[in-house]
């Protein structure tokens, strides 16, 4: 019985709904999602988007209004949390302050009637797994935040749950520690083969750790996909804005096969990028697929070009971030490699150019349904 033999379970959420008493809108609204065994899925979204409520329903902390939660095909919705056999890691660790590290980690083993010798062995193994050997006699209050969260991880992993649920596990830690623990979590996931579901509001965390990201907004799943899919082909303005930086050309009107007009400028667009039949679309462009030219004629052949004004230049190590203003007043950004000799200054006019293949079109949203996001 070693942690290495542990296997992840598949997880299926089937039209999961949570409606809190007295509230008109559902906190979680018909969320359906398949998580493969051994996958690392991040629940990403702004606060109040339903991601934590969904996680709590999987864990059994929050009663389900309707829908099903299937672990390896078995509906666990009716089981109390203590009989679901899942692991849970809390943002604020939730270690038992009156117990030593060793007794904290032994807690789930004692509940399962594991013998003393076996318990000691498994506790040691769990401590090694999270690299905290030698701290078994300490109390949680004597540990740093990072150490406490690793104890919490050891405690949640020692009984080899098939699914580990993590609720903002790095939210209470400082930046450096967070990045290091991100790598630790990835390592644990790789070594143990357990299914990880991690709630976060930090897009970098989601992008760097997860196999797939489930993006929540307003209690609904907006898009599910690999980090690259979400970044390159967002299905909505919300997703485009929530993940990474983008320059958005609003109110583009399709003008025949493979092209749109944006404020009177004709822009080429690959047919497969069309978001179906919409009379208006928005074109999402990532900073690294954009370039700047002095004159319209300097644009590479076949590239789209839009006149812009430079508003700011920031050096970011290997790139320069050049902030631009579009003809309609919207802000955008171009990532310019530092070895590019072109020297741009705020206030200068320029042409923003890009290869038509790199734009992704999303349905235009009416301003009233729009939300503001960081």
């Amino acid at each position: 019985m070693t942690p290495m033999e542990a296997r992840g379970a598949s997880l299926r959420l089937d039209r999961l709904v949570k409606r809190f008493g007295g509230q008109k809108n559902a906190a979680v609204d018909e969320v359906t999602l398949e998580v493969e065994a051994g996958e690392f899925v991040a629940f990403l979204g702004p606060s109040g988007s339903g991601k934590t409520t969904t996680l709590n329903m999987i864990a059994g902390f929050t009663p389900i209004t309707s829908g099903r939660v299937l672990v390896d095909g078995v509906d666990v919705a009716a089981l109390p949390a203590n009989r679901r056999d899942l692991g849970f890691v809390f943002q604020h660790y939730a270690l038992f302050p009156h117990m030593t590290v060793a007794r904290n980690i032994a807690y789930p083993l004692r509940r399962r009637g594991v013998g003393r010798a076996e318990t000691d062995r498994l506790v040691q193994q769990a401590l090694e797994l999270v690299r905290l050997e030698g701290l078994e006699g300490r109390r949680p209050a004597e540990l740093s935040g990072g150490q406490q969260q690793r104890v919490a991880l050891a405690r949640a992993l020692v009984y080899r749950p098939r699914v580990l649920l993590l609720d903002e596990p790095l939210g209470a830690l400082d930046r450096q520690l967070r990045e290091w623990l991100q790598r630790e979590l990835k390592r644990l996931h790789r070594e143990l083969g357990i299914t990880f579901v991690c709630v976060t509001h930090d897009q970098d965390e989601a992008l760097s750790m997860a196999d797939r990201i489930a993006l929540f907004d307003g209690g609904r799943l907006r898009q599910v996909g690999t980090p690259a899919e979400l970044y390159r082909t967002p299905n909505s303005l919300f997703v485009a804005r929530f993940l990474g930086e983008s320059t958005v050309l609003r109110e583009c009107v399709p003008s025949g096969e493979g092209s749109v007009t944006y404020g009177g400028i004709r822009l080429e667009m690959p047919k497969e990028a069309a978001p179906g039949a919409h009379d208006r679309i928005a074109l999402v462009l990532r900073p690294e697929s954009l370039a700047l030219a002095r004159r319209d004629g300097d644009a590479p052949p076949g590239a789209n070009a839009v006149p812009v004004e430079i508003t700011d230049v920031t050096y970011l190590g290997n790139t320069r971030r050049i902030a631009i203003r579009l003809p309609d007043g919207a802000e955008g950004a171009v990532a310019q490699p530092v070895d590019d000799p072109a020297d741009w200054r705020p206030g200068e006019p320029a042409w923003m150019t890009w290869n038509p293949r790199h734009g992704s079109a999303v349905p235009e949203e009416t301003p009233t349904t729009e939300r503001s996001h960081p």
Partner: protein
Amino acid sequence: MERDINRPATWLWVWAAATALLLLAPTLVVVPLSFAGEASFVMPPKSWSLRWYEEFFTNPRWRDALSASLRVALLTTVTATALGTAAAYGLARLRGRAAALLSGLLLSPLIMPQIVTAVAVLAVYLRWQLNGTMAGFVAAHTMLAMPYVVVTVRAALSDYDRSLDLAASSLGAGPWTRFRTVTLPLLARGIVSGAVFAFVISLDDVVIALYLQTPLLRTLPVQMYDSITVDVDPTIAAAATLILAVTTAVLLLPSLIRSKKLKKVSVP
């Protein structure tokens, strides 16, 4: 000279000492009186002896009263602590108007004039034939003492992190195991202070005990009251000094345990 801002000024010490003296002096007068050699309350006593302590422990009236008081107080401690802890735990899980209403109800014995409570209890007990019984005493004292337990345990619960319950259940603990292994140990300090209060409240009660007493079951405060109304008997001073010593010891107990525990933690 620069003054350490963390150290109180001298006048503050003097002020505090004067206040403490004002509060304690009337009580402390009984201590020298209990060691008096003569049968009077003359302060300071002209001679010294332990005869009133001897009287206290040999006279069956005093001895029986002491034993009755201790039995009632200990039983009250158990029932008030158990009921009060459960009530506080339940209250912490309620929200809104129901919680406010119930908490007011549970704490009402604190505000109710004791004489009113005593008359009401006597009226009911006469019908139920509970006056003068151990069960009757313990029930009445439990009602008086329980609010103190509710208050101390609620205070302990306000620091209690509810995510520990979720953590315990995610790790496989059912509701009862959760309570036994996590909640109870973490509330221990609040429960112990509540228990101490319950013990002292019961030991201290004279109003209700006066109404419920029978010649067969009378508590120490009642015996003291009787003795002072009947004749001038300095045994009451010895009894008062003993009660003072016991309650002081009981009240200091939790803080003594705490400092011992802290020492244990700091030496790994």
